[in-house]
């Protein structure tokens, strides 16, 4: 079974600290993952937004992998190839895309309260700095949409500071604020689709 795995620079497991061997070398959970209590963890496409890290690898898992809420858990796995398209520049692009999504949710919040003019100002922001500043100013003027605007401001700030995982988190919660858990799910789905499309990934 093919899946994906985010690692820190140097093929290091973000939580286990385990350094993965070269591609093609199988690792089994009982053999050396001291920091991992349950097995080899990997991502389906839908899980990617939760686990972003420096390196993304395609991983082959043993076929009996169990599915968890946001990950796959297998008894064994081996790295197959690094996804070279996942770079800091790509992460920045992703963070920007998430920031504009959070902006769209803030616009929706403004429109729901009849603030068309202010929604148009948000829609007219051409750069992340303009977006961040407009959202911050409008948040002070609109108690009804304040949280959505602050989320938009945070999303822009995340994109400006290369904080892609937090930017994605903010966008998902901005969606939830407008449309509840269903919208949260849809936003996370949009994020995983963005990653799959830009990185050329295929479903597990």
């Amino acid at each position, binding site marked *: 079974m093919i899946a994906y795995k985010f690692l820190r620079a140097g093929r290091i497991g973000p939580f286990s600290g385990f350094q993965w061997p070269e591609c093609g070398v199988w690792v089994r959970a009982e053999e050396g993952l001291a920091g991992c*209590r349950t097995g080899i963890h990997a991502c389906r496409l839908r899980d990617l937004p939760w686990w972003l890290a420096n390196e993304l690898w395609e991983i082959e898992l043993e076929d009996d992998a169990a599915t968890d809420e946001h990950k796959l858990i297998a008894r064994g796995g081996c790295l197959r190839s690094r996804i070279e398209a996942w770079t800091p520049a790509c992460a920045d692009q992703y963070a920007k895309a998430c920031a504009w999504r959070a902006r769209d949710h803030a616009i929706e919040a403004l429109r729901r309260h009849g603030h068309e003019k202010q929604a148009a100002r948000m829609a007219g922001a051409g750069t992340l700095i303009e977006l961040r500043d407009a959202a911050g100013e409008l948040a002070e003027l609109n108690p009804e949409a304040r949280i959505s605007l602050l989320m938009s401001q945070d999303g822009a700030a995340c994109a400006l500071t290369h904080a892609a995982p937090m930017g994605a988190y903010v966008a998902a919660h901005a969606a939830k604020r407008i449309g509840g858990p269903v919208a949260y799910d849809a936003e996370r789905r949009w994020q995983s689709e963005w990653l799959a499309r830009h990185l050329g990934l295929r479903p597990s």
Partner: protein
Amino acid sequence: MTAPREHVEEISCQEFVELVTDYFEGALGPRTQNRVEEHLVMCHYCETYAEQIRATMRALRALDDEPPAGEPSPAILAALRRRREDSR
């Protein structure tokens, strides 16, 4: 609106701080451990905090390996006595 589903639950930074020691000691259940790790990916502040806690725990464990200090040397004791006398 649909009732919040369990998978939307996430821990806050405050909850993270409360859980971090148990996390490093492997004392959390799998579900809570997942939440902690998801939070760590997303929050640089808590990631930094966790690194500090990890370093502190490592340093404290290293202290356990040091033999207890013996009696202070006669020279140190004499110096401390002199200092006490001087301060009177």
